[in-house]
């Protein structure tokens, strides 16, 4: 820990800071543009990172990762298009806020929550990455299955008050997630002889279609000249400060959820932000506001999503086991600099390791400063007339879907899912649960299949699960989440009824 200070000093070089600032700008842009992902940006910048040397190079990659995950919130809020799966829940409240003319408030809330979450996650990484990496190993296939189930319990929260239709939508998502190769046997299923389907329905093109394309079609259909009214709010920061102060418990809880789930290799940011969102709604005094423009929902999703950034580096730094693709690419960079992540990192290369971790703190502060000014640019999108914005979004969807998969196949997936999303909007079936099923389905399926293989060596499935305390705890959480969802649903319905009666009377 005492080595953190020299780590900061390593970063004081003006060139390093300038490169990090540029990386933050680039990361925000990449994250904002639908379809362009942090992974793409980081792997694209690898050769440049090598040229800069370890401290500057790694700081740059970390800055891109931090900024890109935040950038996903921008498109989620302005265009109802989650740029990354982990900003999915941000769109549920972000876009309604934009429509109410509160885009500014939503964007700043996302920025502040991202930075707070990011700093929390980074502190977790710095304080205890070695012991936490070992702890993450306690999570095996059964735990991942139940974690995905816990995420799926959020269906009710994002069904816009139509729980049955939400369940239908989630089931469609789970079914679509089955297309492709069986994760465990490797067998090919539900491809109907169309070979490219072997790689499954890719999540990013699917989300682009479901949210952006269907949204673009709606923009073009609507008579309005702009997607939403836009006006700068009076006393915006005063209001926001009050909100942040009121929501400190949501921010803290979401940061913890994001950090814990981020540490688990393979869980991913989407589960973190969804569970945080669901928790925020469950504990809220006015759960009915969620999905209709509750700034708390944005804060929960974004804090968890950015807390996950640094904590996802925990198993990579502690054990040399990258928890997600971003961490894998950064690990590749570390190794090319001759640094072996894992046990012994702090004895062999502590200077660079601490400089890298310190850079993540600096990145978050740079993100706060640069993001603050970029919000003004982002809101300009709302000034573009609908008849330009609609086609522009469709063009971005096509480019993004191609870029995400490097093939025209991705574009077809995007159009196919766009049609599905559009039809679902027309008949009033919420699309959020479908996206949830699509994102969590593969994690749940693999966890279940591997658990069943593991359980073969036990006398019964029950004894296998009973011997795993974390699984038992997760089952309890799932049950609590389910019953709470039913209770919250009933409460909001009653509140709705009451409001209507009062309105009539």
């Amino acid at each position, binding site marked *: 820990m005492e080595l953190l200070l020299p780590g900061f000093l390593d970063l004081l070089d003006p060139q390093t800071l300038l490169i990090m600032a540029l990386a933050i700008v680039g990361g925000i842009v990449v994250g904002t543009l639908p379809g362009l992902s942090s992974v793409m940006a980081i792997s694209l910048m690898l050769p440049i990172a090598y040229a800069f040397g370890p401290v500057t190079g790694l700081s740059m990659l970390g800055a891109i990762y931090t900024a890109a995950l935040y950038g996903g919130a921008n498109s989620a809020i302005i265009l109802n298009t989650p740029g990354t799966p982990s900003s999915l829940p941000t769109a549920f409240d972000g876009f309604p806020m934009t429509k109410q003319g509160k885009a500014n408030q939503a964007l700043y809330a996302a920025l502040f929550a991202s930075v707070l979450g990011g700093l929390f996650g980074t502190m977790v990484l710095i304080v205890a990455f070695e012991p936490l990496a070992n702890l993450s190993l306690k999570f*095996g296939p059964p735990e991942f299955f139940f974690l995905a189930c816990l995420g799926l319990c959020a269906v009710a929260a994002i069904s816009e008050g139509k729980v049955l239709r939400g369940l239908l939508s989630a089931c469609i998502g789970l079914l679509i997630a089955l297309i492709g190769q069986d994760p465990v046997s490797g067998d090919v299923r539900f491809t109907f002889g169309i070979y490219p389907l072997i790689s*499954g329905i890719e999540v990013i093109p699917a989300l682009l279609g479901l949210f952006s394309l269907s949204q673009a079609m709606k923009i073009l259909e609507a008579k309005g000249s702009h997607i939403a009214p836009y006006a700068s709010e009076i006393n915006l920061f005063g209001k926001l400060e009050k909100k942040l102060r009121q929501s400190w418990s949501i921010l803290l809880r979401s940061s913890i959820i994001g950090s814990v789930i981020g540490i688990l290799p393979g869980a991913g940011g989407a589960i973190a932000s969804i569970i945080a969102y669901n928790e925020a709604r469950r504990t809220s005094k006015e759960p009915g506001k969620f999905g209709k423009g509750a700034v708390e929902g944005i804060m929960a999703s974004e804090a968890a999503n950015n807390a996950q950034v640094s904590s996802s580096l925990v198993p990579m730094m502690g054990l040399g*086991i990258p928890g997600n693709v971003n961490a894998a690419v950064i690990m590749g960079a570390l*190794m*090319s600099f001759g640094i072996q992540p894992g046990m012994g990192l702090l004895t062999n290369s502590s200077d660079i390791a601490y400089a890298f971790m310190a850079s993540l703190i600096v990145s978050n502060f740079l993100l706060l400063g640069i993001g603050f000014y970029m919000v003004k640019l982002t809101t300009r999108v709302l000034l573009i007339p609908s008849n330009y914005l609609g086609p522009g979004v469709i063009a971005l969807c096509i480019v993004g879907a191609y870029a995400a998969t490097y093939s025209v196949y991705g574009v077809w997936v995007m159009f196919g899912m766009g049609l599905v999303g559009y039809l679902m909007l027309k008949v009033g079936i919420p699309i959020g649960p479908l996206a949830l099923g699509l994102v969590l389905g593969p994690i749940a399926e693999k966890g279940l299949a591997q658990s069943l293989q593991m359980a073969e060596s036990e006398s019964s499935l029950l004894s296998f699960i009973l011997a795993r305390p974390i699984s038992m705890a997760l089952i309890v959480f799932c049950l609590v989440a389910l019953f709470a969802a039913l209770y919250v649903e009933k409460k909001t319905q009653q509140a709705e009824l009451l409001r209507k009666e009062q309105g009539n009377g």
Partner: protein
Amino acid sequence: MTLPKLYRLLISLGILVLLILLIKPFTNEGSPEASYPGKPIKIIVPFKPGGGSDRIARVLDAYTKEEFGSTFTFVYKPGGGGHLGLRFLANTKPDGYLLATYNTPDLVLGHMTGIANYEQNDLVVLGQIAFDANVFATSQDSPFFNMKEFLREARKRPGKLRLGISQPKGGNHLATLAMIDEQGIDISVVIFAGGTELASAVLGNQVDVGIGGLAPFHGSMKQTRFLAISGDKRLKIIPTIQTMIEQGIPMNSGTGRIILAPAGMATFQLERLKQGLKTIFDNDDFQADLRKVGNEPSWLSGEEVTAYLEDFQIKAQKVLEKTGL
């Protein structure tokens, strides 16, 4: 169409034509044989970024500028265990500017298990640059110290021990099933989605032993106990660990890292690439860099790889029929 709109259209068309004219001279080369490649070669990594294949390709990339005059452009095409990207290569116009990385023996296994959907002859192997023997690993909590002990216990308690495999229908899956079958024992097999997933399952004691590449364990050497090497010789970084053959269990499997080209490329291009790869491989710095990312340099020419794969295919066919994989 109103007049100003027409103007605008004409102007944008004019700019487009200008741009094309500007770019054209740079894509025209003089004599193709002397200047090949002359522009960046695209390389398909048929997996997600950050994996073993990506790292090896990037190490190679650091030396391509010196040898070929330009670096690679990376194209990631994951899916179908890598065969989706290879199918793209097989169906591409063989102009000499698109290559791919891949692994043996998975190259032929995909055709045998029906996952690959292109002609095996549509691809040509340029050479193998590394060979990574599979290792059997457990955590330090394990009661086992070698595979002999593990198999003895497995025989005593049929079906009660778990063995993790790093990838479905890959080379080590097949080799392990063949070994289990030959030993006549009953073990619960758990399949994971890649080497890193297997490594965390092994270290977290989710399985009693796991088989996969060594690279994912590099960061946790102190927590990992290696039981055996499933290759024909011992490894430099874990010199005390015996091979399976030394322990009296016939098994030899591993992953060869190869570079592929589409069939039908001009002979001068193929020769240039093969010779260039060999030159890069013979560079000691390149071999040191490969070891840095956890891979063992090992050269085989394209013909040698093809011969190895033909031999493997005959043996594997028998195993596939027997195990019903």
